[in-house]
């Protein structure tokens, strides 16, 4: 790897910690970001000559802080001095070099920086955009591409989100245990949103959006390094790794969805699966199951099966039942019905989901799954109706195309009834 590539990687790895510490000093997102940018420019000049510093994040914090203080001093010649609390910690800046990055201050800094992005006033899409811009340091253009909007629209979205954060009360005091765990839960949910933005993308959107999955995994790893005993983050990271491990197998060359049963398991990433399984092992020792962990355990059972027929559906059914108790939702029951169909047949699965019809009537997957059970039961007319309804509700062309293959098969079957019967 060239020097410049190494420096680029080191800067982006140090970014969350550096921006988070600068936010604590300056208590303003824009100032913290500008200070970090300044420090990066200086790093690009200095590191190729002098070699990389032993602790890149500490170097960037120190240099960034000095640069921003200089800037504030220059401005103060023409405008009134800022309040003292706007520039805290003006003591001997050299001493900060000695500060250890694994100190609890820094852990809470990074958590705070992420928590700021989860401001409850911000809609989910703004939370994600803000986190990707500020914490991950993706460019506005990269984020805009991932969200399939124009640069200008994304710029505006981020500016608006920053404005809301600035007007809100950013909590700068060190959090207590309860607050810390609340922040942790909010941040975990936001990281999973980032992941799902990438994971739920269609085949042809994958190249632009799947980096969001990598970014979410990177953030979860960062948090787990800082807070190594949080089972919630172990579960979330395991869940994301086990889902993302299937990435290369989830879409065919035309960008069409490939169902789990039909995926080429050789394309799954063994490395990500191994890491996910190791994290589940760790999380289990805490005997404090959280929903992410149960979801990860379900993904692990799929990942462990060498062939689709090796899947342990009994255990998956039990885990979904656990999840139904932890966070009751019709969607979880719908997912559970897939295991029930494998274990006890399509009629049992259909009986399980029929009561959900009112709640899930406008949900694409409900009609798709229901159609599949009806088809297995030989109720072709009903199946066709369900598939038609699913296509009408599809959010993406890939979803619609997937259902259409079911329909095509149905039509083919009904036009050549004898051959279909013979195949049985």
């Amino acid at each position, binding site marked *: 790897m060239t020097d410049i590539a190494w420096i680029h990687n080191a800067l982006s790895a140090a970014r969350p910690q550096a921006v988070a510490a600068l936010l604590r000093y300056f208590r303003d997102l824009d100032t913290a970001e500008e200070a970090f940018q300044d420090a990066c420019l200086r790093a690009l000049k200095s590191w190729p000559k002098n070699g990389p510093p032993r602790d890149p994040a500490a170097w960037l914090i120190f240099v960034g802080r000095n640069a921003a203080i200089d800037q504030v001093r220059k401005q103060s010649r023409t405008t009134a001095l800022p309040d003292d609390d706007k520039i805290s910690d003006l003591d001997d800046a050299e001493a900060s070099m000695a500060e250890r990055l694994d100190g609890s201050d820094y852990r809470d800094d990074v958590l705070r920086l992420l928590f700021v992005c989860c401001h409850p006033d911000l809609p989910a899409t703004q939370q994600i955009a803000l986190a990707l811009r500020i914490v991950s340091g993706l460019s506005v253009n990269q984020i805009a591409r991932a969200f399939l909007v124009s640069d200008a629209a994304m710029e505006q979205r981020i500016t608006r989100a920053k404005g809301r954060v600035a007007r809100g009360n950013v909590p700068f005091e060190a959090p207590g245990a309860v607050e810390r765990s609340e922040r942790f839960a909010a941040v975990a949910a936001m990281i999973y949103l980032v992941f799902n933005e990438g994971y739920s993308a269609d085949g042809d959107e994958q190249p632009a959006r799947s980096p969001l999955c990598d970014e979410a995994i990177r953030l979860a790893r960062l948090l787990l*390094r800082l807070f*190594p005993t949080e089972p919630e983050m172990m579960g979330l990271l395991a869940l994301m790794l086990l889902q993302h491990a299937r990435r290369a197998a989830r879409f065919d060359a035309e960008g069409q969805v490939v169902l789990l049963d039909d995926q080429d398991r050789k394309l799954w990433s063994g490395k990500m699966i191994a890491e996910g399984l190791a994290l589940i092992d760790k999380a289990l020792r805490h005997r404090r199951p959280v929903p992410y962990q149960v979801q990860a355990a379900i993904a692990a059972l799929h990942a462990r099966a060498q062939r689709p027929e090796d899947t342990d559906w009994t255990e998956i059914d039990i885990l979904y039942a656990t999840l139904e108790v932890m966070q009751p939702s019709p969607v979880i029951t719908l997912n559970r019905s897939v295991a029930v169909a494998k274990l006890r047949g399509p009629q049992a699965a259909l009986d399980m989901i029929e009561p959900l019809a009112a709640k899930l009537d406008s949900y694409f997957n409900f009609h798709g799954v229901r159609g599949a059970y009806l088809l297995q039961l030989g109720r072709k007319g009903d199946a066709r109706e369900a598939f038609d309804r699913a296509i009408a509700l599809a959010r993406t062309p890939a979803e619609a195309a997937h259902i259409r293959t079911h329909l095509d098969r149905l039509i083919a079957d009904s036009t050549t009834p004898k051959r279909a019967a013979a195949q049985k």
Partner: protein
Amino acid sequence: MLYAILCYNEEAITSAWSKEEDDAVMGRLMKVQDGLRQQGKLGPVARLLPTTAATTLRKSGEAPIVIDGPFAETKEQLLGFYMVDVGSLDEALGIANDLATANPGVGSYEIRPVSIFFQNGT
């Protein structure tokens, strides 16, 4: 003389490598490894999973303490390692516990899952 060569790097950087970057590094390392293997100089090679997957068993009086995360004490030094093939983290912890009982006092055992392993360089 047998030497163990221990690899250190900044994990925040290496775990953020894209698949292409990672493959490129591994490809270059494999070339070095191939040369050593042909000379009959290479023993077992392992790449470990990230420290976030690590668990540490710390010796302490009667019952050792199990801590999430990697070994973090700078005043102790790496003195050796075992590689064990077991079914679960609990089993690995059990073995570490036996080791701690056989060699009481201070110290820790970090249990790190292995991601890539070559028995004799292949």
